[in-house]
């Protein structure tokens, strides 16, 4: 008589060595795993809560400057090295891993207005209020040597900003005009002007490296072409732009930090309307820097906070502030896109995480899978009211909070007035201008 039995192949459940993971047979029959939506919802809710619990972005404060930090620069080859210039003419080089200052130079008299590194990381340039451009070696002087700049260029006017070319030994300064310098020469190889104004910042395009953007105090942003040695176009905004930053992944996109509390992202081929207006700050935006992935940017503001915006959103996804942080003057996103540095008025450089709740250090594969899953769950249920409320909640200092309320009221009043005007005038006589168009005064060819 034949007896029927259940039989299993031991290969499917016996481990070869004891270090192997136990093989767990799984049954994916959906009837065995009911309530998938509620369960995932709860998981998402928990993940969101945990994210807020673990959101501790502040990492370190680098103190040592004896005046407000006016400019920051990243080292192009080393993630751990950061350079900073202060309002008393002092330049410091920091090691981020040790969180210590490794070198200190009295570079200028008065402000250090701009600082930038050579693309190969061997030297850096500073400009100051003393009308000089100085090139310094990145490594400190050897024993017994004087701390001296490699080159010093004496100019006729004050230079207010400097930026280095991304591939060649060329740098650009700005002041009364945009000058392009060869490193080997003491006079600019080309200087470009368009009207007379004081230009506050100049930036090379990191992708199409012959392009430059600058912003001047008469409210305009001017684009230059280095190859053809001409300005290209000028856009005049409502208020002054403090600085601009190019997107490192999209050659024609740049963002301008404006005095009217907003940031404007432009496509340089169509300057008449900004691609996006980023608003959340409650005071002048002083600096902006893109994440190296080109997906976000960080902005520093006079309202004592820094904010992180996704490039395609008009509202910020994160706001960082501390009690002691004063007006933030400069901000940088590190080149591994993990951290943010900001230099502020009260002489400190602060280091933040770019993702507030990210766990630092090496993650095991299970941890990584869990974070990925949680991230995806949060995205999936982001529109649900509970989750939305929790994930959006931020604590703000009272000053910023009250200013936000105030501005909301002002905005509402303006809107109402416009509506009333339209309502009470002849139909068609008052045109409604879109917010984007309103901010651009003119585009000059």
């Amino acid at each position, binding site marked *: 008589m034949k007896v029927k039995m259940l039989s299993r192949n031991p290969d499917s459940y016996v481990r070869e060595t004891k270090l192997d993971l136990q093989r767990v047979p799984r049954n994916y029959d959906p009837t065995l795993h009911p309530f998938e939506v509620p369960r995932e919802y709860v998981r998402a809710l928990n993940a969101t809560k945990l994210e807020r619990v673990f959101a501790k972005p502040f990492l370190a404060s680098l103190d040592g400057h004896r005046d407000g930090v006016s400019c920051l620069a990243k080292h192009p080859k080393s993630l751990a090295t950061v350079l900073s210039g202060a309002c008393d003419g002092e330049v410091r080089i920091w090691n981020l891993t040790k969180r210590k200052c490794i070198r200190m130079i009295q570079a200028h008299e008065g402000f250090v207005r701009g600082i930038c590194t050579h693309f190969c990381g061997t030297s850096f340039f500073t400009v100051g209020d003393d009308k000089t451009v100085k090139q310094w070696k990145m490594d400190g002087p050897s024993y017994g040597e004087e701390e001296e700049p490699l080159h010093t260029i004496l100019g006729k006017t004050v230079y207010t900003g400097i930026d280095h070319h991304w591939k*060649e030994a060329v740098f650009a300064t700005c002041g009364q005009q945009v000058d392009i310098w060869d490193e080997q020469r003491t006079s600019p190889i080309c200087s470009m002007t368009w009207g007379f104004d004081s230009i506050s910042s100049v930036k090379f395009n990191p992708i199409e490296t012959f392009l430059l953007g600058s912003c001047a105090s008469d409210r305009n942003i001017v684009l230059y072409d280095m190859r053809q*040695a001409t300005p290209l176009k000028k856009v005049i905004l409502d208020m002054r732009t403090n600085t601009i930053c190019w997107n490192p992944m*999209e050659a024609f996109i740049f963002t301008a930090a404006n005095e009217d509390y907003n940031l404007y992202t432009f496509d340089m081929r169509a300057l008449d309307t900004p691609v996006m207006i980023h608003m959340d700050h409650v005071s002048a935006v002083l600096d902006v820097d893109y994440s190296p992935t080109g997906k976000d940017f960080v902005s520093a503001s006079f309202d004592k906070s820094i904010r992180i915006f996704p490039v395609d959103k008009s509202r910020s996804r994160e706001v960082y502030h501390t009690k002691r942080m004063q007006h933030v003057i400069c901000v940088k996103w590190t080149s591994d896109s993990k951290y943010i540095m900001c230099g502020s008025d009260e002489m400190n450089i602060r280091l933040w995480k770019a993702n507030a709740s990210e766990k630092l250090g090496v993650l095991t594969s299970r941890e990584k899978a869990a974070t990925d899953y949680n991230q995806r769950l949060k995205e999936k249920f982001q529109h649900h009211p509970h989750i939305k409320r929790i994930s959006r909640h931020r604590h703000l200092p009272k000053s910023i909070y009250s200013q936000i309320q105030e501005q909301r009221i002002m905005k509402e009043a303006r809107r109402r007035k416009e509506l009333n005007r339209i309502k009470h005038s002849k139909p068609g006589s008052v045109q409604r201008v879109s917010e984007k168009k309103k901010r651009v005064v003119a585009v000059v060819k």
Partner: protein
Amino acid sequence: MSSSRAAESSLLALNQQEELEDLPREYPLSTSEDEGDSDGERKHQKLLEAISSLDGKNRRKLAERSEASLKVSEFSVSSEGSGEKLVLSDLLEPVKTSSSLAAVKKQLNRVKSKKTVELPLHREEIERIHREVAFNKTSQVLSKWDPVVQKNRQAEQLVFPLSKQQSVFAPIEHVVSGWKARTPLEQEIFNLLHKNKQPVTDPLLTPMEKASLKAMSLEEVKMRRAELQRARALQSYYEARARREKKIKSKKYHKLLKKGKAKQALKEFEKLRKVNPAAALEELEKLEKARMMERMSLKHQNSGKWAKSKAVMAKYDLEARQAMQEQLARNKELMQKIQVASESAEEEGGAEEEGEPFVPDVVNEVQVKADRPNPWMFRNHSGDTKEAEVQGDPEELAEPAAQEAPESEEEGPVVAEEILLKEFEERRSLRQKSGLNQIAKPVGSQEAKDLSSQEVLSELRALSQKLNRESHQSRKQELSSTRTVLAVQREEPAGEEEEPLLLQRPERARTLDELEELGKEGCFQNKELPRVAVEGQQLERNPSNHLGVPKEKKRKEQMIDLQNLLTTKSPSMKSLAVPTTVEELEDEERDQRQMIKEAFAGDDVIRDFLKEKREAVEASKPKDVDLTLPGWGEWGGVGLKPSAKKRRRFLVKAPEGPPRKDKNLPNVILNEKRNIHAVAHQVRMLPYPFTHHQQFERTIQTPIGSTWNTQRSFQKLTMPKVVTKPGHIIKPIKAEDVGYRSSSRSDLSVVQRNPKRLSIRHKKQLKKISVD
């Protein structure tokens, strides 16, 4: 503006020049001016003059110099005394003689010949143009990034840093240059190597090896790979297509496919016959072989299982009958004897002419009929034809069956004709396909001796029916009133087959006279539908009569209501009724109503709603609970039910709930299931990227956790959007990263050139812009 000014000035200058050139001819040099200095000369001249004056002809009044200060000035040369203008050529004249001043003269001439230069543009304007040109150029350069940016924005996952470290080829000796042999084995190997004089040190590679290493550059490899990929993709595509086609079970499809292939083959054969007779002969041999095979096999003899089953059905089923006929036709076709190839090759040209007498009358007749200007006139609307077919078909069936037997004997003579007929058949079938609904009915009814023609007919009939069926869908609206269409077409002088939608023609109602005429024609032709036609005539007779119209309308609506369905008759009537100007508006209205009726034909909304509401009320009512246990306290088992008393006793009546909110609202169903506790967790508005709530719900419904998904799909579902490597510097995107070639020229070198100098092309551009 400035340019026009410049042009003006240049014109002026030109005029002046012309004057300069003209002047010398008008005013010959005055003699007074080249007076010599010496007295002797003067005397001599005076003498000469005296002599000439004697002649009295060439006498000239000489200007007397009266006051020196007037004429001779140290600031300017004056010629006032002579009454002539001083021109440039006057000054040049004396220069002619002295060779030393040739250079000066040349210069002067050059000055004379040169045109004036246009005024340069204003500096600001030039700069503006420069900027514009430069901007256009730059934005062109930048637009190459568009696809890259687009791709990166939409990418599911971006992995940074973008540029992967290229694995650099390093010879092992470089790597282990610092390494020394320690163990005896290693030393032994080293010794061996040195003995064999293997290149341990430089040059590490022979030139050949190096060349082979460098043989293929990265781009080449990429290109080659892309090519291979393309080829593979194409191959797989064709394979997939073949597989797909093979899988198709539809017999009709295969039949059509086969037919198409056969036709193609025939065409090719024709071509071949003209181009290459030898090859054509081979083809013919092949055909001959096929014929032999056919003769040997019983394949198309209607003797198989399938054929027998069909034969049983044939009596009742039209299609079965046709299928059988087709089989036989196929057999016939395959068994045709082919004419000797040499003949056909020789006759090429004459074949068609000679073919004529072979053609039986029947075929010609069909052609003639098909060629008629209006095939509709001759016979056909689907309704009629169908009826006719139903009647005629049994006869047809009988005929081929009867002919079957004699045919097999007569085969020989018939075959000879058939090859020649083939061409005609084809042509005819083509022609007749264009007039789809048309069937050569009379031909069928005629007694046809030739089987081939018979075959063609049956084939055609089958085809037309098939096509009728197919076109039925697309022409539903008109076909619902095929008669209408046909009737209207009949009204047309020369009916074109391409326009079946004649109802919407714009020239329908131009003038009243035309309409009347049309109406007369219509009434003359529409004898089949006398009542409607009469009505139409009435309408047409008194077009201003408004009373007739609503009556008609009412009647039509009644009809629709009665049938409560998409009626086929009403539209036909509408079109048959002769269109009048009055009806125009009514037509539209009615059309609208008609359309709504048609759209909601068959669904009674109100009844449905009431039913739905009843169901909802029922569902929301609290249910009674039956606690009876069968077999408890009494007998139980199959077929036994607990007693009514027990049931009554254990039935727990549910308390009646509160009255429904929509109790007094007959047109509303208020859902009372809404859970206020869940609302806090529900999304109130449809979030942005979604366009329909179902999409959103679906994304929520699909779980992404590993509890519900396999490991692989879980990983895929939870893939992060941006991946960065810790401790790696992310550089800005480069042209090489995305496969573009970065420009080789340096930005710096360009700057060092003189930037202000413009190329000729630019200048041209400049000019053009300034003109505009």
